[in-house]
């Protein structure tokens, strides 16, 4: 793993007093261990991608990609089966958007408050408490959505046609609460890392605290903030337990957040714990949906990297 290393040869007749006085084997061992640690995560990712491809490829030999991506009915385990993935995709996007509508304003608001307004004492209490939210198991959030948020929504909903027992709204809302700490904590780190010099400069020009936050600190921290939001989106798209518990298990091509719907991850979980025979088309759908999920998050990450490059303000 070492790069080419140039060794100085002692010229003939030199005393060699600059030579290494004792061998440093420990250092090599440590380096190999550290390299192995970083390799594990890379190899795992590569392995997952490799494992996804063959079953997904077999699936697409039976079902055309066009039918898969544009079909509006998803019933792979029924007869006759329909392999239109759109209901799952729209459900995933719907829940994710609702989650972001909750998490981005609240998360960024919390981050601006903690980084720019809160006194150090307040921050030292608030931030750990916020991060505890990230440690709550997602299944707990799922039941919170199903047993607390949905009944509450049904109670306070004006009119008769309130949310169904399983619905995208409460699942998305609770998922938003779940990713607030991710967005808030990482954005706060990015904003706190902006040099105090820049704030002083802005204050000295007669800026209010709000102007300093929005016009100087926020743009300077943009790349970190976008990274935080992207990580939040990735968690929302990949989140399984909340949607499986609170949004229901029925594929439903609908744009009404009050209805139940099945997301891509919820389908994978439901089909995965079922007893589908290995090699059957139903089994392969899991990999097809999984690949699509992977591609979606990948594209989103690439797009956000591009966006950040264009808009960020680099401080030294």
């Amino acid at each position: 793993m070492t790069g080419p290393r140039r060794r100085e040869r002692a010229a003939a007749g030199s005393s060699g007093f600059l030579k290494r006085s004792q061998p440093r084997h420990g250092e090599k061992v440590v380096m190999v261990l550290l390299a192995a640690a970083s390799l594990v995560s890379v190899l795992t990712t590569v392995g997952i991608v490799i494992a996804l491809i063959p079953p997904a490829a077999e699936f697409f030999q039976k079902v055309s990609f066009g039918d898969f991506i544009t079909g509006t009915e998803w019933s792979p385990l029924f007869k006759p089966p329909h392999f239109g993935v759109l209901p799952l995709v729209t459900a995933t996007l719907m829940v994710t958007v609702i989650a972001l509508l909750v998490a981005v304003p609240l998360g960024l608001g919390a981050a601006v408050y903690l980084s720019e307004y809160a006194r150090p004492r307040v921050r030292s209490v608030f931030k750990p408490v916020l991060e505890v939210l990230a440690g709550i198991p997602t299944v707990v959030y799922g039941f919170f959505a199903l047993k607390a948020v949905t009944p509450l929504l049904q109670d306070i909903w004006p009119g008769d046609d309130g949310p169904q027992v399983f619905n995208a709204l409460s699942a998305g809302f609770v998922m938003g609460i779940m990713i607030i700490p991710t967005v808030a904590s990482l954005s706060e780190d990015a904003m706190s890392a902006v040099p105090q010099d820049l704030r002083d400069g802005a204050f000295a020009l007669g800026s209010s605290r709000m102007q300093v936050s929005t016009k100087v600190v926020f743009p300077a921290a943009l790349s970190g903030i976008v990274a935080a939001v992207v990580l939040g989106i990735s968690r929302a798209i990949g989140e399984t337990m909340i949607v499986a518990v609170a949004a229901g298990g029925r594929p439903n091509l609908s744009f009404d957040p009050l209805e139940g719907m099945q997301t891509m991850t919820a389908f994978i979980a439901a089909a995965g714990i079922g007893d589908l025979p290995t090699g059957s088309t139903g089994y392969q759908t899991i990999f097809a949906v999984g690949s699509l999920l992977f591609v979606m998050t990948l594209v989103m990450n690439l797009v956000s990297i591009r966006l950040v490059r264009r808009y960020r303000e680099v401080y030294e």
Partner: protein
Amino acid sequence: MTDATDRPDPVEGTDPAPHEAATATPARARPAATAPDRPADSRTPRVAFRDARPPSGVPVFEVGGVSVFYGDHEAVRDVNMTIENRQITAMIGPSGCGKSTMIRCFNRMNDLIPTARVTGKIRYHNEDLYGRDVDPIEVRRRIGMVFQKPNPFPKSVYDNIAYGPRVGGFKGNLDDLVEETLTHAALWDEVKAGLKRSALALSGGQQQRLCIARTIAVKPEVILMDEPCSALDPIATAKIEDLMEHLAQEFTIIVVTHNMQQAARVSHRTAFFTSDIDEAGVRHGRLVEYDETARIFSNPSDQRTEDYISGRFG
């Protein structure tokens, strides 16, 4: 700016009585750069010591019994001084003497440090700067500040200048204001081709002049400079000093500096701070002597000042 090296070194004291010499030869006043409404101005760029201007009689700041605390620690104790209109006042002294703390009192930058507390009175044009209904934002629009390390925003040159006017609700033509401001700060010719380029691409000296330009874009009355040249090389320093002399025709400038030659070269009046240890063993900054710059450097009345400027201490 090429005369960085041919300036006489003021501390060497080539002129035995520079103060008297300068006042005796008002004819040496710079004809072009001096504002016509102040013919008595005897400032010349080549004398060893700047002569104090005739007192304008317009006090900008009256500091009375000011102490600054960080938590329980008294960083500066009982400062009294009056700063007059359109003069350059230098604050010198060894590290830890409280001069930076003191300068940050004038535009209430110390408000931003949660533990800092200012006692005593600072009157700005007879108005209590720390009065109950005084808005620190309004204060900072009138009293601008330039910092030790150049701190341009990570935005374009144009946006750096436009920032202050924008947050202040400027309604006129920003393009004109930017050009006028940069010209005023003697930076226009160097940056006019790259107004949209990042300010961080400028050299350190240009960045610092940009920060000065950014400060005058909001048209303050006073400019505070906290060691503005300490991160710069001698040539960039000389350019900033030139700019300060030029700006002193319209602005009241207070400058903190570690560089005694700089204080001697540019300022009209000099305040010497040092740190004392009191009976309780607590170290705190004090104003030792405040006088015309020529007198401070040629004939200081306090032994500590003389020790410091002659290099025996600090």
